[in-house]
């Protein structure tokens, strides 16, 4: 009955701890074998609960969890062939690195020689050979993380579940360990499910990004889809990098519609596939922050731009390779332009300057 594949299917999975509110509320999702999947959302959105249900540390209130074609609800983690890497690692403090990594083999009854040999091979894989006899407390955060990864991977699971694996590390180490996670995943060739609340982490690692809100999946798809083509305002704002504007539809003509806004002629937005827009609807649209061009009043707009919104510069933040310019373009929402560093310093703006924010018309997208 060994599960050989690591493809996962969640069907109508619900979880309620108090019988009143669903922490996870009817989640349906398919994750391919060998995929790197990131669950992302604010704390309390149910992403960790989903992870724990896949791991077998919680039972769903309703729904099915299928791993490798078998419904695993009610099975122990070992029978599921999953392994979990816990937030803050949960290394056994009284055991050395080698004993920690060999623990799962020990409780499976493997002989001492065999399990220590297997542990040493794994220790080499995570490059901790010179630390094998240390206790976890004598290791740095990054080393502890590698021990946790090795401990989880030693049983050759089909699915590795990682609960905020990088949150305990400082920024530089996080980027480094991120690459290491990806390398391990490719080396092991198994499914990784990674829970995080950092969108950068998710889009850097994942084949499949799952954005969650209040127990529901808001959008699931490739990283580029979630970032560049968010379905709705929530995903756009959570993934970042987008300006979200809302307004009433003034007219619909052929391939585009016009949104009433502060702009004299409104905002022209291509219709795309979303056809059900009629005059009078209130619609959200998204424009990527790096698609916004700032033009001084009186200058001609770049080609392809039909919309220009007069704005005042509220604040400027230097970010290295780009400059973040915050504008008062729309009354209620944040409006930000990411201006490439070279462009910005060719004609530097100051706080209080009046500019026209514009973008190529086909870069604006209506949201659900």
């Amino acid at each position: 009955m060994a599960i050989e594949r690591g493809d996962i299917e969640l069907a109508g999975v619900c979880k309620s701890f108090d019988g009143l509110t669903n922490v996870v509320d009817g989640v349906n999702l398919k994750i391919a074998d060998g995929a790197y999947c990131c669950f992302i959302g604010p704390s309390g959105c149910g992403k960790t609960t989903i992870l724990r249900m896949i791991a077998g540390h919680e039972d769903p209130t309703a729904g099915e969890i299928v791993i490798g074609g078998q419904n695993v609800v009610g099975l122990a983690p070992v029978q599921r062939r999953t392994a979990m890497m816990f937030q803050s690692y949960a290394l056994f403090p009284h055991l050395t690195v080698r004993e920690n990594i060999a623990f799962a083999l020990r409780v499976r009854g493997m002989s001492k020689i065999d399990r220590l040999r297997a542990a040493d091979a794994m220790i080499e894989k995570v490059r901790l050979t010179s630390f094998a006899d240390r206790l976890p407390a004598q290791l740095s955060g990054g080393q502890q993380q590698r021990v946790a990864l090795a401990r989880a991977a030693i049983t050759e699971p089909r699915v590795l579940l990682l609960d905020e694996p990088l949150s305990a590390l400082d920024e530089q180490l996080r980027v480094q360990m991120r690459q290491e996670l990806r390398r391990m995943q490719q080396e092991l060739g198994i499914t990784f499910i990674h829970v995080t609340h950092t969108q950068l982490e998710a889009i850097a690692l994942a084949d499949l990004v799952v954005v969650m809100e209040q127990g529901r999946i808001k959008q699931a798809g490739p990283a580029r889809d979630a970032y560049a083509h968010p379905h709705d305002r929530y995903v756009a704002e959570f993934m970042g990098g987008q300006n979200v504007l809302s307004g009433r539809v003034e007219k619909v003509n052929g391939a585009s519609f016009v949104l009433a806004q502060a702009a004299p002629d409104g905002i022209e937005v291509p219709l795309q596939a979303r056809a059900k827009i009629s005059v009078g609807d209130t619609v959200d649209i998204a424009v990527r922050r790096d698609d916004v061009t700032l033009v001084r009043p009186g200058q001609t707009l770049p080609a392809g731009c039909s919309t220009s919104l007069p704005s005042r510069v509220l604040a400027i933040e230097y970010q290295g390779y780009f400059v973040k310019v915050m504008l008062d373009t729309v009354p209620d929402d944040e409006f930000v332009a990411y201006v490439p560093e070279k462009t910005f310093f060719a004609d530097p703006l100051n706080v209080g300057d009046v500019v026209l924010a514009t973008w190529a018309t086909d870069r604006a997208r209506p949201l659900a």
Partner: protein
Amino acid sequence: MQSSQTPSRANLAGWLYVSPLVLVLVPFFVAPILVVLAASFFATDGFGGLTPGFTFSNYVEVLHSALTLKLYLATIKFTVLTWIFTLIIGFFVAYFLVFHVRNQLLAIGLFLLCTVPFWTSNIIRMISWIPLLGKEGLINQALLATGAVHQPLEVLLFSDLAVVIAYVHQLTIFMIVPIFNSMARIDKKLIEAAIDAGASRFDIMRLIVVPMSKSGIALGTIFVVSIVMGDFFVVKVMSGGGSASVVSAFYEDVGVLQYPTAAASAVLLTLVLVAIVSLILRTVDIRQEITR
């Protein structure tokens, strides 16, 4: 100048911090021990009078007496039995409270319930065993009624069994508290991680819980061992005078005014206890475990 002044100032502050403890320990602990130590080398006229001097004869007497070995064996028997039972009961009570009672308030409530026996005095607690264990006590009545025995069991009260029962009853709490304390500090995620690795309940207890409760077990052991070895009252009452312990023997010595031999026995017992405690501390680094 700074460098010459700072250490002395730090020293003074250090002494101030320990002074309350020193003020208590010196008159109430160090001084009496020194008195006993001195008395153990004195000679006596046999009627309570002490002759200051320096003689090993008291120690020679104690060590040459066949009774001493017998008393130590009896005391160690009580100690080991009490230790085993308090350890087993204390460990599982603490384990239950920490790992099986989900509601923390309930756990604290149950924990306080363990202290209920201590709301009455030691003597009352011992006397209350009589209606239960006595010849006409509840247990004998029940056994007779069910036909399990035809004669009331005499072994239940005023026996070594009764002594051990009374000790276990009194001292289990001294095991529960430190073990509970060290178990409560085990991160629940470790248990989950062990389950994730495929560990059974028994594996978790053997490989995670027991090793991580070592400091609590050691502390509880020190409490139980030193209390049992230093006690004579429970032995006297619960054995009905049938058994003796090291302390009850030198209590008898004091009763017949043999102060120097009693003092020598006391010093010997102290040394034995110090040896046992340091052995425990050598196996478990309590200080390191506590600061972990």
